[in-house]
């Protein structure tokens, strides 16, 4: 499987997550969002940016409370909760946002 971005086909896993983290560029998120019929706003980008920064430091996506806290600080307290994140990423912030950010899918009982 793969996803076409700027004329290149990037390898993805069975569920459409990027196979190689380093293949990521903003256009990847755009392309994935387009497939889902989502338009990426600035707030989406804040989440994606944070996910990538966190992953770079910790090699894992942030836990939901780490994410909501960080987003609350950036976008305002009323947005620092999973309800808001689900509005942004209806398929689930953990999974959909990770996918757009080029991170592997979180595994386990989540």
């Amino acid at each position, binding site marked *: 499987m793969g996803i076409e971005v700027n004329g290149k086909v990037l390898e993805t896993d069975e*569920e459409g997550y990027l196979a190689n983290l380093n293949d990521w560029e903003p256009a990847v998120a755009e392309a994935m969002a387009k497939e889902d019929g989502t338009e990426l706003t600035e707030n989406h980008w804040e989440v994606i940016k944070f996910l990538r920064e966190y992953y770079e430091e910790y090699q*894992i996506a942030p*836990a939901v*409370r*780490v994410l909501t806290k960080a987003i609350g600080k950036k976008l305002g307290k009323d947005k620092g909760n999973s309800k808001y994140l689900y509005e942004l990423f209806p398929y689930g912030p953990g999974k959909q946002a990770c996918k757009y950010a080029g991170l592997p899918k*979180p*595994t*386990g*009982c*989540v």
Partner: protein
Amino acid sequence: MADFETPELKEIPVIPKIKEGTMAHSKPYVAKAEFQEPLGYPGELVENWEEKAIEKLGELKGKYRSLQVYLDACVKCGACTDKCHYFLGTSDPKNMPVARQDLLRKVYRRYYTFAGKYFPKLVGAIDLTKDVLDEWYSYFHQCSQCRRCSVYCPYGIDTAEISMAAREIMDSIGVGQKYCNEILGKVFKIGNNLGLPQPALADTLEGLEEEVEDDTGVPIKFPLDVKGADILLVTPSADFFAEPHVDGLIGYAKVFHEAGASWTMSSYASEAGNFGMFIGSYENMRRAARRIRKAAQDLGVKRIVFGECGHAWRVAYSFLNTLAGPFDFLDPNYPVPQHICEYTYDLIQQGKLKFDPSENDHMTVTFHDSCNVARATRMGDKPGGQLEIPRAIIKTVCNNYHDMAPDTIGEATFCCGGGGGLLTDDLMEIRVKGALPRMQAYKEVIDEFGVTNIAAICAICKSQFSKVLPYYGFGMTDIVSLHQLVSEAIILSDAPADDDEDDE
């Protein structure tokens, strides 16, 4: 969103007319070599797989005599046929427990019984072919190993053991399930199902300490890798990561705090769950379980307490001593291991915890018995304690509680639909359909008693419900952790006095 139809909730539960083959297309992603090999399995289908599979079946039935009994004993009485949530939700007759068992039984008969060897057609014995293998892969991943059928089987045939054996046979010839095997690999490499490394775990727990102190004014600790602590808490890694799980973790921390306990978590054994059981692999189950022993020894703890995780409690309660024992280095005055519900309940009995149950007055709660806890374990020192103790805790911390229908709870509980290694997006259809009986029972108590929330003590149940509740028109956040209710109602004796006024 979904390319399947969510079953309709009826006024009363209906046993569906059979529709053959409706779920024959369902199968999870197959594990690639990178997920097979770390578990000791071949990376892809081996050349002489038929022979190897039959050999493995022979080995397993020799090692586990129960398996041979289950394969021999069925008289096709039909008592199990309408007991499986996956049959009730899909109408596919191969999801009747007897039919699921027969997938393996037919092959067993062909190679290991006199009649099957010489008169296969007379006894429904068949050769192991690629089609049969594909059918195994599909339907043995439509069983959550919840063991409800075995409660109704007059011979006590345990379909879960047959499913586990089938998965072990498939793994041994190179056909594993990606979800389970990738996760087990992460446990061996990093310490938990999520692959949450120590620094991320430490950062997450630090964040929780800040959050809880902001919220309560009390410096509640979430200790990690503290040598010499009395209690090692082993909890599913979902408790660190997801909602509503994390609210349960906050509840445990508040209980430990209020009890004045010295406790810690371990980054090495940062997972209660043990997917080795789901894939029927004694070796991998043992390998995961031994991490807990090592952590307990390295940290020098006196007790081990397990957090809210259904199958973990089965492995812990029923198998831990044989897998990773003896635990003679732990304090014999306490159960080895102990469940967090037993821990909290004991403190309640001793009058050491104070609650304001009105904090939960905005909810009317029901309790979903998790299959592995209800049917494979116990809590406390009386039969049925695993059913009574969680309810007793909820009733202490909540004013409004109603049980669901008796044939859907307790030892007859319906699975959430996502257990046994099926909690993966590639199996969403079977997960949603399999949740039907539970959703039906939940709807009944909503309609009759105005129930607003459903509590559980299993990470899988919690994740499964938050995913499937919306398919049936319920709220994603209806599902709560049991210790989340405890967390809301507990009175922290060192809380600042003006706490109440803040709310007004």
